[in-house]
C-alpha cells in the first residue's frame, strides 16, 4: 500500500529491504526516540521548564505524568531528558535515578537501587551494604546534607508510580516528597502512571507534600491526524542511503477501513506499531512493498479472537460437551453446573437426536471434561476443590454464545446433527 520502492539504486534489493526493516523496526520497537513528541507540545514545554528549573536553579519539584498505557509518557520524559542533557551546564549537574514500580517492589529494594544509582559512599562496587534502616537513614542524611545551591539536583523518576503507593506506609514516597518540600538537596520527583486516581492512593500527609502538578497525556487525535501519523511512521527518513524511496499513500478503501477500525478500538501508538510491525515483517525481497492485503492480514491477526482458535482444535466430544453447557446456561440463566449435569444433557442428546455420534464411556467423557478445564474454557467456581468429588464440582463456562456458534460454523466437518443441536436444545418430553 503505502510504500513502493522505486529502484534506481546501486544496492541490491535484499540489502535495501533489510535497511528499511531495520529503520522501521527501531521505530516500532521504541528503540529510538522521535525527533519531537507529537501532539503533546504544551506538556512537553511544561515538563521541560520544570526540570530545567530543578537543574539550573536547584528548585525542588514534584510532578506526575498521567496517561493511559501507550500514550507516550516515557517517550515524553525521555525526550525532555535528552533535551535537558544537551544543555551544557546541565548534563554534568544532574543525577537521574530511574526506578520502576514493577522492579522495585518494596522500599528496601528501591532504597538500595537509589543508593546504587547515586553511587553514594556506602556503595562498594555494585553492592549496597547495610540494613534497610541504615540505608534509609544514610540516604536521608545525604539528602539533608545537600543544599539548594551547591549540591547536584537529583531527578527521581518513578515509573509505575502507583505501585510505589502500595509500599508499606509509603515511606519512600513520603521521604522523597518531603525532601522536595524542604530545604535540602534539590530533587525532582517525577512519577509516571496510567492511573487517573493515583492521588487518591496517597496517604494524606504524603498527598499534602506532593505539589499536585499533574501532566495529563490524553491524546485527542482525530482520525485524520491518526492517518498522518501512520504515514509518517512508515515513511523513510530523508537521508536514507543510496536508494530513493518515496511514499505514496494509497487511498485504498480497505486500508482506511482497517485503520479506522483500529483507531476506533484504541488510539495509542503501541497497538498501531504492533499492527505495522506485523505488516512490515511480511516485506521480503520478492515482495518489496507493503500491500493493503498485508495490512488486512495483520489486522486480522491482531483482532482474532483467541478462544475461537482454541475451539477449532477441540474434538467432537468436547465440542458436544460445550454445547451441552451452553444449553445448561440457557436453562439455568448462568448458574454454575457440574459434570453430572453436563453428562446428563449430553446423554439426552445422544439418545434422542444423535445419528453420527456413538455413546462414550463415562471415564472418556470425564477426561474430555478435564481437558476443557485445563484449557480454561470452563472454570471451577469454588476454591476448595479437594473436598468435592470431581463430578459434582460446580463449573462455569468462559465462552460467549456467539463464540460457540461462530466456532461451530468454522469447525471442519462438523456433523450436522451437532450443529442442529447447538441451535435447538433437546426438549424435555
Amino acid at each position: 500500500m503505502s510504500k513502493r520502492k522505486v529502484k534506481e539504486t546501486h544496492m541490491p534489493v535484499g540489502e535495501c529491504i533489510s535497511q528499511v526493516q531495520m529503520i522501521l523496526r527501531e521505530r516500532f520497537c521504541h528503540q529510538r526516540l522521535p525527533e519531537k513528541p507529537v501532539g503533546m507540545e504544551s506538556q512537553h514545554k511544561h515538563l521541560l521548564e520544570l526540570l530545567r528549573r530543578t537543574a539550573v536553579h536547584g528548585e525542588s519539584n514534584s510532578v506526575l505524568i498521567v496517561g493511559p498505557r501507550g500514550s507516550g509518557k516515557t517517550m515524553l520524559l525521555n525526550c525532555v531528558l535528552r533535551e535537558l542533557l544537551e544543555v551544557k551546564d546541565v548534563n554534568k549537574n544532574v543525577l537521574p535515578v530511574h526506578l520502576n514500580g514493577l522492579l522495585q517492589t518494596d522500599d528496601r529494594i528501591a532504597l538500595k537501587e537509589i543508593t546504587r544509582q547515586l553511587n553514594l559512599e556506602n556503595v562498594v562496587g555494585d553492592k549496597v551494604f547495610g540494613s534497610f534502616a541504615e540505608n534509609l537513614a544514610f540516604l536521608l542524611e545525604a539528602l539533608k546534607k545537600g543544599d539548594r545551591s551547591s549540591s547536584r539536583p537529583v531527578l527521581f523518576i518513578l515509573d509505575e508510580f502507583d505501585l510505589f503507593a502500595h509500599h508499606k506506609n509509603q515511606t519512600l514516597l513520603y521521604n522523597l516528597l518531603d525532601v522536595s518540600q524542604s530545604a535540602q538537596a534539590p530533587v525532582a520527583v517525577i512519577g509516571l502512571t496510567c492511573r487517573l486516581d493515583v492521588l487518591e492512593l496517597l496517604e494524606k500527609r504524603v498527598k499534602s507534600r506532593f505539589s499536585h502538578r499533574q501532566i495529563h497525556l490524553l491524546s485527542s487525535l482525530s482520525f485524520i491526524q491518526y492517518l498522518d501519523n501512520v504515514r509518517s511512521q512508515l515513511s523513510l527518513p530523508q537521508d536514507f542511503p543510496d536508494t530513493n524511496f518515496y511514499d505514496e499513500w494509497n487511498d485504498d478503501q480497505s486500508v482506511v477501513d482497517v485503520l479506522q477500525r483500529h483507531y476506533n478500538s484504541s488510539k495509542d501508538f503501541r497497538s498501531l506499531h504492533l499492527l505495522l510491525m506485523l505488516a512490515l515483517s511480511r516485506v521480503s525481497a520478492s515482495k518489496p512493498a507493503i500491500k493493503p492485503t498485508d495490512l488486512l492480514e495483520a489486522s486480522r491477526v491482531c483482532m482474532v479472537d483467541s478462544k475461537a482458535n482454541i475451539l477449532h482444535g477441540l474434538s467432537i466430544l468436547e465440542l458436544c460437551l460445550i454445547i451441552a453447557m451452553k444449553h445448561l446456561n440457557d436453562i439455568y440463566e448462568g448458574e454454575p453446573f457440574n459434570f453430572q449435569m453436563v453428562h446428563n444433557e449430553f446423554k439426552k442428546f445422544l439418545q434422542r437426536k444423535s445419528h453420527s455420534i456413538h455413546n462414550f464411556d463415562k471415564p472418556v467423557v470425564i477426561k474430555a471434561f478435564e481437558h476443557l478445564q485445563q484449557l480454561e474454557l470452563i472454570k471451577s467456581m469454588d476454591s476448595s476443590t479437594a473436598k468435592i468429588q470431581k463430578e459434582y464440582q460446580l463449573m462455569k463456562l468462559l465462552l460467549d454464545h456467539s463464540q460457540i456458534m461462530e466456532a461451530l460454523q468454522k469447525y471442519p466437518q462438523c456433523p450436522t446433527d451437532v450443529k442442529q443441536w447447538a441451535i435447538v436444545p433437546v426438549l424435555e418430553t
Partner: protein
Amino acid sequence: MVRYFTRLRMRRIYKWGGRPYIFDRKLKSYGFEYLNMSVEGQEAVTTVTPGQYILIEGNDDEYPFVAKLLKFFGDESHKQKKALVQWFLRLSEVPQNKKLLLGRSPHPQEIFYYLGRACDNEINAESILGTVDVQHVPEDTPFPEPGTKDTLYVKLSWDTKAFNVLDPVLMQDTPASTPPKPALPLFPPCASPTATPVSRGPVRRALPTPDPTVMRRAGSVSDTRATMSAGKRSTLEAESIHSASKLSASKILSAKRRGSAADTPGVRKKLQLSIGASPGKKMTRADVLCELLDEEMESEKVISLKLSSSVSHSLQHGCSLSPMRSGCKTPNGQRRFPWKLSSISLDRLSPTALGEQDLSRATTPSRRKESAMAIRKPALGVLAEEDSEDSPMQPIALTPRSKRKSAQLVSLRIRKQLNLLDNTQELISDGDDDCFVPSKKDLQSSSDEEKTDSEEETRGRNCKTSVRTPCKTPSKKKDLQSSSDSEEETMVRKTRGRNGKASARTPCKTPSKKVTPSTPRHATPSIPSRTVPARQPGNILEEARARLHVSSVPESLPCREQEFQDIYNFVESKVMDGTGGCMYISGVPGTGKTATIHEVIRCLQHASDMDEIPTFRFIEINGMKMTDPHQAYVQILQKLTDQKVTADHAAALLEKRFSNPAPKKETTVLLVDELDLLWTRKQNVMYNLFDWPTRRHARLVVLTIANTMDLPERIMINRVASRLGLTRMSFQPYSFKQLQQIITSRLNKVKAFEEDALQLVSRKVAALSGDARRCLDICRRATEICEHSTSHPSSAGLVRMNHVMEALDEMFSSSYITAIRCASLQEQLFLRAVIAEFRRLGLEEATFQQVFVQHRALSRVEGLQPISVSEGLAVCQRLGACRLLLLEASRLDMLQRVRLNVSQDDVLYALKAVRD
C-alpha cells in the same frame, strides 16, 4: 581503659577510709578522707583520695567519664557515698555541632576541662571505676605519642561554647595524700547548713573570704551596706526561685528547685550576684565576722520571710548558692566547697590588687580579671544599681521584671515577626538585659583560676588573704561599674550574640555538617556537589517563585502566634525547671505544626546561646523516616550519643540513661513527628516515649505530632494515653485570611500578584483543605503560567486572575471527564454498555459477559463492526488500567465483575459532550 571495662562485670565494694568527721550537723552528712574500693573476689584494694583523677561509670562502657575528685561525703549510716568532682569531657561528649570549634583533630586520649554549669558535680561514689592519670599539656607543646593507654591529656577547657586554653594553674596536682585536717569548730547555728568539709587543707583556707566587699566590711563593721546588699541578693535569689518554680515550700522540693533554678539563666544571674556577697557568710570562722554574719542572716531572714515561705531555705540557699557552678544543685545542700576555692584565688592575685588598689577604673587586663573574680560575674548593672541605691526592695522588684523580660522578648519577637532575630539582638544588647549576659569566658576562666589556686594555697596565707582582700573591694567594685569595662563586655556580648544567631538559625537546616569522628568506619552520606552553582532567580516572577517554594525558610511564621507562644512557654518552663513533660500536637497536614516547633526551638536555642536559659539538646525523629517503630530507639540514641546499636540494645541504653541520675545531664527536647506510625501492637515504643519524661532524672521533654486530634483515644491503650497527659494542642486549618497573610509575608513586598488573585487562591484552598502547602504550590504554578503566557519572560507582568484560575483548574479539576472524552470509540461504547447494563440490572455491578452483550448491541446500533471477545476484553482492561472502571482480577476472564469508578452522570455528561 580495658581494665575498667573488665571490672565492670564484677561487683565492686566501696568502703570509706579514714576517720569520718561531722560535716553537716543538720543534714547529718559526713566527710571522708578517702575511699577504698576493691573488686569482689580480689585482694587488691584501690584507694581513692580527693585530688586524684578518677573514672566514673557512664553510658559508654569503653569511655567512662573522667573527673577530678574533690571531696567525699556520705550520710550517717555510711550507706550513701557521694563525691564531688570537677568534670573533664571527652570530645565525644561535646555536642556534635560544636566539635568543629576545636579546629583540629583530637588526640585520642585528649580530654577537656569542663567549665560548663549544666552538669551536676555531685556523683555517687559507687560509680567510681578507678583512678587514671591525667597530664596537662601546655598549649604550644604537642601531645605525647599515644603510647601509655591509661594516661589522658588535657590541653584545653570547654565551657559549652568554646574551647579555651586551659590555665596550667588549674591543673596543678594537689598531692593525692594530703593529710586531712582536723575538724574545725562548728559554725554558729545560723550558718550551720554551710558547714565546711574539712577533708582538705584548701577547703578551710577558703573559708575566710572571697568577697572583698565583705572582708572590708569585716574591717569596718559599721559599714553595713554591703551586708545589706548581700542579704538582699540572697533574698532576691530566693525570690527568683520562688517565682520561677511557683512550687510549694516543702523543704526538699524547694531545695531541689534551687538546684535547678541555679541553672536557669535568669536565675543564674542573680545567683551570681549573690555569689559576690555570700562569701561574707563564709567568713564565719573569723570571730570578727561572726557577728556580722549573724546580722546579715537576720536581714536575710526578714526579707526572705516576706518572699518565700521558708526562712531556712533562703538561708541555706544564700550559702549554697555561693559556689558559682552547679554545686548548689544537691538536694540536701551539703556541698559547700567550691566557694572555698574561689576565695583563695584572691590570695594569689591580691598583690596586684593591692598595688592597684588606689587606681580607679584601671583598665589593665589583670585588673579586669580581678574584678571578674571578685564579684564572680562581670559587672552587672543590677548589682551596681543595687549597691548604689541601697534599697532593699529593689532587687526583689528587679528580679521578676528581669525574668519577665525574657518572656517579653519572646512575645516581642513574635509580634514583630519580621526581622525577628535582628530585633531581639538589639533588644538584648540595648536593653538593660546587658547585665544578664555576662561574658562567660571571663567568668569561667577566673573561677578556674580560683580553683586551682585554692588547691595550691597553703594554710599560712589564709589570714593574709582575709586581711588583704577587704581593702581591694571598693576599687574593684568601681571597676565593675566602670564604663570602659562594661562597654567592652557589651561588645564581646554583641559579637557573641551574632555568632549565636547564626548558629541558632542553622542547626535544623544543616545538621549534616557534623563530623562523626567516632564512626570513621562508616561512609559519610553526601550528594555530590555540582560543578556550576545554581543560578539565582533573575526576574520578579522567579524571585516570587523561590520565595513561595515550601522549602524556603520564612523569616517568621505568621498566623501561629498563639500556638508558638504556648509551645514556647511549655518547653521553656520545662527546660528551666529541668523537668520533663509531654505535649501532643495535632492538625491536618500543611498547618504548620512542624514548622512552628522548629521555630520555637530556634528561638529557644537562640535564648540559650544568649544564656537566658540552660542549654538543651534538640532531637527530632519522624515516624515516617524510619523503617520500623523500634528504629525510633536507635535513632534517638544515635542522635544523643552517636552510638550505633540494635533496637533492643538501644532501648535498654535509653532506659538506663533516662532512669538513672546521671551526671552532666542537660534537658533533651525530643520531637516525634508522625506519632501514629510508632504504633505497635504492644505499644511499647509509645509507652516508653511517654514514660521517660515522667522519670525523676530524665529531663526529657517530648513533643509529639500527629494528624488526628483523637489519636490518644483511638489507638492508644490506657496506660499510654494516660502518660501522654492532657497537654494537647490542635492546629486548626488556616482560614483564607491567614493563607493570604502567609503568602503576603512570604512574598515580602515582592510585587508579583494581584490582590484579588491572592484572595481567590486562599479562599479556594481554605474552602477545600486549609493546607498551606497546597496554597503555595498553586501560587507557584500561577507564576509559571503567567511567565509562559507572555512571549518574553522578562516582560511578564503581575500574576492575574486568569493565571490563577488556570492553575486552580489544573490542580483541582478532575481528569476523568477529559479522559473519557479522549478515549477511543470502542472504549466510550463500552462505558455506555456498562451503564446500560447497570440500568438493566438495577445494580452497580455487572460481569464482563453481561456488559459485552450490551456492547454488541450498541455497536450494531452505531453501525460499527462488532469486535471480538478478546478485543472487548482488551478494551475493558485499558479502561481498568486508567481506573475509569474497577475490575476484578483478569484471570476470571469473562466472569470478572465490572464497576464504574466515576459516577454515571459524569460518564453520560462526558459522552454527551463528545457526540455533540
